[in-house]
């Protein structure tokens, strides 16, 4: 299927642990993103990568480290997890700007619960 996929879908872990979330898109898009949705459903950009290069870093704690091994993958590693990191994390991608078209497509989300 053509899509943005994320693994795992659910992640439950203890405070202080380190965890990773993976994202892959097979849409041939150049730019990928991580967004965070908090408990009040508010969605906010965290990072953006274009063709493996970091473009946007929205004052996210440095415990969060994105890595893009290639333009189809963008992973999110979180060190020393805290209770406040509990949220749903969405990966998204969009095609190269052409004629102004830049619709973003979202993955299914990863629900992270820190105990």
């Amino acid at each position, binding site marked *: 299927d053509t899509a943005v996929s994320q693994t795992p879908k659910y992640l439950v872990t203890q405070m202080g642990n380190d965890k990773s979330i993976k994202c892959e898109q097979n849409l041939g898009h*150049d*730019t990928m*993103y991580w*967004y965070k949705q908090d408990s009040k*459903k*508010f*969605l*906010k*950009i965290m990072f*953006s990568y*274009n*063709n493996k290069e970091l*473009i*946007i870093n*929205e004052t996210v704690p440095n415990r969060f480290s994105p890595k893009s091994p290639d333009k189809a993958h963008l992973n999110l590693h979180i060190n020393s997890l805290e209770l406040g990191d509990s949220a*749903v994390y*969405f990966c*998204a991608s*969009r095609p*190269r*700007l052409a004629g*102004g*078209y*830049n*619709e*973003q*497509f*979202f993955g*299914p*989300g990863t*629900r992270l619960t820190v105990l």
Partner: protein
Amino acid sequence: GIQVEQSPPDLILQEGANSTLRCNFSDSVNNLQWFHQNPWGQLINLFYIPSGTKQNGRLSATTVATERYSLLYISSSQTTDSGVYFCAVDLLIKAAGNKLTFGGGTRVLVKP
């Protein structure tokens, strides 16, 4: 930064009713998207609508970029329309760095 406000914050509808959701934004934008987050948490693209009017089945949307607002119309609502509707806009930062700024959402509950 850009502000995106959605109204109303909550909406309860009887099945079959029509409704209008509004999105106001504080600055000029390049693009605007409407999403439906269903009860399972998936974000579903409804419309990519930087300007003009589009229709998809019972849903339609209109964006008036010069007046900085967009409207989403739901006609003949069904229980499956329940969920949260988000408006999101992007402000071009660099050639490849645009990001979506989301409104707070409108929570819609359609009762049978």
